């Protein structure tokens, strides 16, 4: 964790972002776009795969769809939140549903089609907070 923090500190606004979406077109697109913004991005196409990747990748933020082929996005969060080391990880829904249909376990929500300006602003704010070490708990709704 300290490792990743020191690295993001050096290379602003780079965050470690995990994108979880079973639509490969969506996932690949997000990967490219976020990479262009200077973030470090990894992709997962299913819930189990995401959980495994979080272990090794230790992302600052997980952008995930509500529906995944093997489990729901909320189930992924629930499993990870049980563990102390992921307490400060931000889990943000990116889905085609309206915000009132997003389970409260998500830290925030971007409705598809994603407003990339808003997403960038949100990630910058997150990066700043990250530097101050206040991300995660007390996280505010991006939209």
């Amino acid at each position, binding site marked *: 964790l300290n490792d990743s923090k020191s690295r993001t500190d050096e290379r602003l606004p780079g965050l470690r972002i995990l994108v979880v979406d079973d*639509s490969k*077109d*969506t996932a*690949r*697109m*997000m990967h*490219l*776009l976020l990479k*262009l913004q200077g973030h470090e991005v990894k992709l997962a196409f299913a819930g189990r795969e995401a959980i495994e990747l979080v272990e090794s990748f230790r992302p600052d933020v997980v952008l995930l769809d*509500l*529906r*995944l*082929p*093997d*489990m*729901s*996005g*909320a*189930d992924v969060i629930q499993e990870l939140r049980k563990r102390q080391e992921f307490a400060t990880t931000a889990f943000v829904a*990116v*889905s*085609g*549903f*309206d915000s009132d*249909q*997003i*389970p409260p376990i998500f830290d925030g929500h971007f*409705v*598809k*089609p*994603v407003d*990339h300006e808003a997403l960038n602003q949100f990630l910058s704010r997150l990066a700043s907070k990250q530097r101050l070490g206040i991300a995660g708990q007390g996280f505010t709704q991006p939209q």
Partner: protein
Amino acid sequence: MTDAVRSGRAHLMSKDPDVSATPDSPRGGAEMRVDLSNEGFTEPPQYWRMALASIGDAVIATDSAGVVTFVNPVAELLCGVPLSDSAGRPLREIFHIVNEKTRLPVESPVDQVLATGLTVALANQTVLIAPNGRETVIDDSAAPIVGKDGQVSGVVLVFRDVSEKRRAAEMNERLAAIVESSDDIIASKTLDGILTSWNRGAERILGYTAAEVVGKHVSILVPPEHMEDVDAILNRIRRGEKVDHFQTKRRRKDGTVIDVSLTISPIRNEEGEIIGASKVGRDITAEKNARDERDHLLEAAQMARADAEAANRLKDDFLATLSHELRTPLNAMLGWARILSTGPVGPEDLQEGLAAIDRNAKFQAQIVDDLLDISRVITGNLRLDVQRVNLLDVIAAALTTVMPAANTKGVQVKKVLDPLAGQVSGDPARLQQIVWNLLANAVKFTPKGGRVQVLLERVNSHIELSVSDSGIGIKPEFLPHVFDRFRQADPSTTRRHGGLGLGLAIVKQLTELHGGTVRAKSPGEGQGSTFVVSLPIAIVHQDAPSPNKVGQREHDEFKFDYSATPLSGVKVLVVDDEADARQIIRRVLIECGADVALAGSVEEGMKFIDSFRPDIMVSDVGMPDQDGYDLIRRVRARFAAKTLPAVALTAFARSEDRRRALLAGFQTHVSKPVEPAELVAVVASLVERTGTR
């Protein structure tokens, strides 16, 4: 009471102190004849005076001329004439009596006694009228006073005020009349439950007469399951409680059970001791039925409301799903467009981006198409472009679309197709949509490494297309709803599978538009599913291209020259168990000028042979119950081939079938699907040849 009575004063005015009487009661008149020779009457007159003064009845004595000689205080009071005025006056002056009903003067009983020498007791219809007009209903009697010589020396008149008694009796009568005339059950029972009274209402409602139930235990009226209530009620009555409007059931004499509302109260004797129970009951069967009916309607209304709410929820779920399904490809397209417009990208990314935009745009177009299809089906605006179609081509096209997804996912797709089973009438694009939807669904709901199989076979007069998978299966409770539009087994936002929930609804509607059926089977969750589409076999070859129309696509149902009428006036009986097949043949034949009768069974066909008298018969061979062979055997038993030639129409195109048909009595055999031209030619030639016209 007057002071006279209270003080015990008596005024005996008898001139003969020895003469007296012992009127013990007015009613005891017959026993009142006094024999003063009796040894017992030795008491002095003073004794009698005191006795007469203190009794409760009015006593007046007269002499043999009817002149008052004695009046006791009660008589004084009732007559309203002071004692001082009474003595020595004729009785009729102080004792005015009239008949209660007629108001006519009644002959004085004293006069009667004097006239007859006999004791007189009057009926209690006499009213005594005092000088001041006060009236008193009295019972009276008069007895002769017989002297020692045996002569009547006077009369003793005894009477009493019966007004109170009369009022009580009247009240009782009135109450009894109320009880009798009541429509309600009014009955009573002892604390042991023995019935003691039973009114006409009870007779009417429960069917038993009073004679049948009084003295019996109330249990004869109670259905066994309500016996405990009876004991409970009697216990409450014993405690002095009243039971109000208790709703229960009672059994009528005829055995029918009715709903009653009972109010049961304790009956007390004069000492206040509870000796029984009265019950007033009402038949509330109609009321209760009305209430039940109302409850039922209410329940139905609530259910309808729940249904409407469920439909509303379904709509909300659908809209949420729809927005999700539209936004997802939109997101991919806009994102890639953004990447491509940000600046130069590598050739691989460019390639990938363009492909992604293309894929997602098509995916979204598919959603829009599905929505429009469902909308057309709902509004009845979906039109089929019906042609002769080979399902093998349709399946091949659908597989081409689905295979990439199946390959990517690692789902194996296997085909088992009967090459001879492919011919149907239909809209090729719509049939392809049916097959594609089923295949796409199968791939979507089958996990990596699973299998999908598409099977095409002929089953009787239908072609069956089955798509089976080894996927997630269908819960039994959802099975009846799989073809409902907008309905998804898991409508939640967290479910694993996307989609609008329209695919199977579209499959069902399109299949039915083709005259077919579709059904779903699944042993349960996780055990795979099978969808079976059954389509009627094509009965005639359509779209048979004529040389001058090659390359020209026309949408006429049949490419047949209907202008000629080679069968003009020929009477053709068509026997086929399938309505569609009959109609198509009928249309072909009628267009050629034939007169056609249609029969759906062998029996019906036989009837038409007598009533319609056809020139020629065209019969299907494969029919349920009796088949075409049975029919031709029965026909040939009565008609020679020359009189009534017959064409066998069958899907069995093998040579042994042909031989069998001919052996059974058919003149020729035409295989399905039938070419209109061939059918017409065969019918025309048979009629010509046999000369039945």
